């Protein structure tokens, strides 16, 4: 199986076209396998009693951040479906929906970055050396985000930034309400853009599937709830977080 698709033109020159989409099935199979393995491990491990959702409610995500999260989530899903479905044989007018969703994602990511860097506790998402001890020390609790959550966030960030960067370059090459297609980029540059866009898309397919899987896991569902309604209970907080490293600064309505 090829990593990228290359075509020989009529003059015998190799033209780079993009990533080989056979990898889509490999990524899906690997993701599925990872989920099955995790399910088996969790089935074997003894179930821990789950903290109660009752009691005082603590704010984990405020409205603004939750809105950003869901805008980014929806636009990413729209991008993935509109990008991947035509490749696997579902024909529809996908390009306009794709670039509109891409612009929405770009705007949301830009605002999120500005807000996270200048108006929020940026350090809460930085992986510190002490975070690396988390998987090995039983009873060690994280701050606001666990090492796994930070890892997922950073992997997503990298892939989303690559997909946005390359997507914007490709966006400049098509017809939009604001400009006519210039068709001006060299074929080799376009090939590299499609390779990077495709590789990051493949990565996002896998990571998004894993993200959704963990969001639906029973022991993680309170995080999903907090991304919908904003709060976690005091019991959930004390069972999963170290108050010395993160203390919700506001008490939500109970």
């Amino acid at each position, binding site marked *: 199986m090829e990593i990228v*698709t290359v*075509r020989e*033109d*009529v*003059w015998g020159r190799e*033209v780079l*076209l*993009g990533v080989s989409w056979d990898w889509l099935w490999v990524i899906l199979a690997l993701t599925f396998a990872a989920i099955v393995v995790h399910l088996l491990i969790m089935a074997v491990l003894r179930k821990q009693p789950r903290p109660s959702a009752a009691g005082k409610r603590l704010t984990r995500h405020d409205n603004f951040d939750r809105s950003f999260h869901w805008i980014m989530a929806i636009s990413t899903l729209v991008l993935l479906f509109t990008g991947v479905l*035509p490749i696997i*044989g579902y*024909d*529809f*007018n*996908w*390009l*306009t929906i794709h670039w509109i969703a891409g612009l929405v994602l770009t705007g949301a990511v830009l605002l999120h970055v500005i807000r996270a860097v200048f108006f929020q506790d940026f350090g809460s998402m930085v992986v510190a050396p002490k975070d690396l001890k988390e998987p090995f020390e039983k009873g060690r609790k994280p701050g606001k985000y666990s090492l796994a959550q930070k890892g997922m966030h950073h992997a997503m960030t990298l892939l989303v930034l690559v997909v946005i960067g390359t997507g914007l370059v490709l966006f400049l090459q*098509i*017809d939009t309400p604001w400009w*006519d*297609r210039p*068709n*001006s*980029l060299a*074929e080799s540059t*376009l*090939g590299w*853009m*499609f390779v990077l866009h495709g590789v990051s898309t493949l990565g996002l397919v896998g990571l998004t599937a894993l993200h959704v899987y963990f969001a639906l896991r029973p022991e993680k569902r309170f995080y999903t709830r907090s991304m919908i309604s904003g709060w976690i209970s005091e019991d959930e907080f004390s069972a999963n977080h170290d108050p010395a490293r993160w203390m919700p600064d506001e008490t939500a309505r109970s």
Partner: protein
Amino acid sequence: MAAHDVMPDIELFQPITVEDASAIAARLDGAGWILAGGQDTYGWLKDRAKHPGAMIDLAAIEGINGINATASGISIGAMTTLRDVMRDPLIAEKFPILTQAAGRVASPQIRNQGTLGGNVAQDTRCWYYRRGLSCYRAGGNICYADSPEGMNREHALFGASRCVAVSPSDTATALVAVDATMVIHREGREKRVPAEQFFIGPAINITHMTVLRPGDILTHVEIPNTWANTESYFEKVADRDVWDFALVSIAAVMKTSGGVIDDARIVCGAVECVPRRLRSVEQALSGKPRNEQTADAVAGLASGGARTLNHNQFKVPLMENLVRRALRT
């Protein structure tokens, strides 16, 4: 540069039923090339631009050749030659624009061999694509015809989504005008698709001109009586009178009463990747007399939204003039 030496090795299948042809195509999983009259196919092979490993020749299949009157109209087998379509008295009586369109395809020799199914399912004639370049339509990332240096005199005015190729079929324009239905054999079932939806543009699928997929076999074209014996007009403008593709073509059918147009379907060919319905013109014609004044009044609507390329601006007045000519009595 491709060498024009001898024909490459190709496995040949000659099924005698549609079911067998479809089963072979399914077994070959997209690697089997459906062969009708071969007038599009052999060009690809001759230029070494496509390399099918196997070919499924439909010529021996009975039941998809010939023209029959049905209770609701006419059924034409997809393997019916363009010559037979052109000379059929029933078609000439009911749908003269199809007679005229078939008669304007290529040359007598090609019409003797080429089929109606092959004519509507043929690939585009964009020379960059036909030359084997890795353009969008060939699965690549660029449109050579739409580049600043691109030669695009024959290319699209409308509906270009990255690719600017146009539909080359003359009969397609007429079939959309008379609201034909394409009957497709797909995975053991019969699928019926209106001609207008049979052709797809690059926004939907940039590597296909029609909804046909590997394994699909177009078996019949059915024309309902809805537009039979109505006033009609077909004209194709090309650089040469024979053996050439349209620069712009027009097919129009009109229902009139007392010289007033009640309803009309007007379709332009070679201005988009699909036969283009001129809906704004059709709407404007309703209730108007078919005469010079009406023609002048609505002709400008035909080119609304056109986006010209470097070398095809001439298609705009050509299109409008063809609409005028179609509407004169």
